[in-house]
């Protein structure tokens, strides 16, 4: 039942950054967007990934999809190592993993009708399919995501943000993927629409058994949909645990801070609660702190934290945390 479909091992994505106006031969500096991330994903499971903006979650998603060059580590998908595959050998796998994006309108080509947009993955992977079959399938998936199929000839700007995101989901769904990576799919939407889109994703998962990687910068969104949650900070995993376990017993000081920042719907409780403020800004990923990357903002940091980088340690109940003190 719980078959592992995706295994990411010590994945590193480093970007070359040159100072503006630098000489062409100066050595570029390395921006460690993702620095040694490992996790596994089971079939039909939802893994939430949270972290502040700039912590490398989007880069991690694109690295799994082989859309950014990978410095080191491996991404094993259904037993095949994807790292280093060329475009042609990667193409069959692109059918199996799809992606939905943060800005629903920007992720749809404004010059194409939604019918053409949704059909694109199908036509790319099954070029021999007849026009009638493509059309039937397009109408079918549009129906599944709650868009009237007779609107296939409309253009993206004629739809609302929530509808556009549904169209994006339809495009991902049309090739029956085993994994959909959702890159902050609801952060650009109204709160009421957010719930609809999340419920739609959960329904689809129940129906088709697709696995999800759900990225967000806010724990409350992720809590609802995820089986397990991974907390990222400056390209490093701070903590991975089953969702309920993480919320009830957060071990990492960073996770504690994130959870305390989630508003409670009850005004009385909300006023009483202690918010752990993370002062200071996120350190530059170009120049991460030595030892534990979180130490510059950690309320319980000790001198030792600057020396040795903590590794993810199993604390039982599938709860892994990277901290010397917990």
């Amino acid at each position, binding site marked *: 039942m719980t078959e592992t479909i995706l295994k990411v091992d010590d994945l590193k994505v480093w970007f070359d950054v040159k100072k503006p106006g630098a000489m062409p031969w100066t050595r570029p500096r390395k921006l460690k967007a993702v620095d040694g991330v490992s996790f596994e994903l089971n079939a039909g499971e939802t893994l939430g990934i949270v972290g502040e903006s700039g912590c490398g979650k989007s880069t991690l998603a694109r690295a799994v999809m082989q859309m950014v060059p990978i410095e080191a580590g491996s991404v094993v998908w259904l037993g095949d190592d994807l790292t280093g595959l060329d475009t042609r050998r990667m193409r069959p796998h692109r059918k199996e993993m799809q992606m939905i994006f943060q800005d629903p309108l920007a992720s749809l*080509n*404004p*010059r194409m009708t939604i019918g053409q947009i949704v059909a694109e993955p199908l036509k790319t992977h099954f070029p021999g399919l007849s026009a009638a079959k493509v059309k039937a399938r397009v109408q079918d998936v549009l129906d599944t995501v709650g868009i009237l199929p*007779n609107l296939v000839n*409309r253009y993206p700007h004629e739809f609302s943000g929530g509808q556009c995101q549904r169209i994006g989901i339809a495009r991902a769904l049309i090739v029956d993927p085993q994994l959909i990576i959702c890159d902050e799919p609801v952060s650009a939407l109204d709160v009421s629409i957010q719930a609809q889109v999340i419920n739609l994703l959960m329904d689809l998962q129940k129906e088709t058994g697709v696995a999800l990687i759900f990225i967000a910068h806010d724990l409350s969104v992720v809590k609802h949909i995820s089986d397990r949650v991974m907390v990222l900070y400056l390209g490093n995993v701070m903590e991975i645990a089953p969702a309920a376990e993480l919320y009830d017993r957060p071990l990492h000081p960073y996770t504690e801070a994130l959870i305390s920042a989630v508003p409670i719907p009850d005004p009385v409780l909300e006023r009483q609660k202690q918010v752990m403020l993370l002062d200071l800004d996120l350190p530059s990923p170009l120049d991460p702190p030595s030892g534990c990357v979180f130490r510059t903002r950690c309320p319980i940091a000790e001198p030792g934290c600057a020396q040795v980088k903590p590794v993810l340690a199993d604390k039982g109940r599938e709860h892994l945390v990277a901290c010397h003190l917990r």
Partner: protein
Amino acid sequence: MSNGMAILNPQQPRTAAMAERMAEVKGRSLWADARARFLRNKAAMVSVGVLGAVFIFAFFGHLVTPYDNETIDWNVLGKVKELGKPSLANGHYFGYDDSGRDLFARVVQGTQVSLMVGVIGAAIAVIVGTIYGAVAGYIGGRVDSIMMRFVDIAMSVPYMFVLILLLVVFGRSIEMIFVGIGLTAWLDMSRIVRGQTLSIKNKEFIEAAVATGVPSFTIIRRHVVPNLLGVVVVYATLLVPQMILTESFISFLGLGVQEPLTSWGALISEGTSTMNYGTLWQLFFPLAFFVVTIFAFFFIGDGLRDALDPKDR
């Protein structure tokens, strides 16, 4: 959550509005929007009419006159000022040129050449420049650097000089003018297109296509170029008068098309040289066509820009 499900349930509309769902709704594309805006632009619409008239004149003008563009009327030669005035009575609507040829026929033929140079020159520049710029911008990295450095170098060569050199070395011909203009005019275009491509490349719909495995050149063709077309169309309409101006300048220098063929530039050049003799109509008619056409193209270009780019999309 359960009431959220009711709104969401995809099965629900299946029964609700079966009949309504059968008929496919037509969408309004961005092109249709732009067309509507363009049709409302008065200056541009008048210009389209004027330009249409100029084209009709160029292609059907010869049917209106019994004269051709090379036969010299020896009776008029030498007495052009007295006998060669424009006149409806004798059928020389635009009068005679300085060599005693019918000016109407010559303007018709000159218009053909000038429009052809303008349209074909611009078309070459647009096609080559768009493909070059889109490829450089989309691929990026080192390929982009090399391709654009080449454009920089080519642009630093004074192109009028190259054009004149070509015409002197390989002889004066229309083909040579096309080659010379085509060699240089696409450079600007490729720069503009590359800049636009860079901004389009970062849009999420390109990422979506990459993520789903669409091949690069299909992405350029299907996702990049259609979103460039607005800029390209506007620039192309502004490029046509630029081509016409270039050709006119070359002809004005006496390096353009060869007699008995002529063009606006050549006719204007002749007209200015005979101004002192009082045969002003020889300057007036070609100049009027030239100015009106250039203005029309500029107004249309302006209208297209407003129509395609309403709020800096």
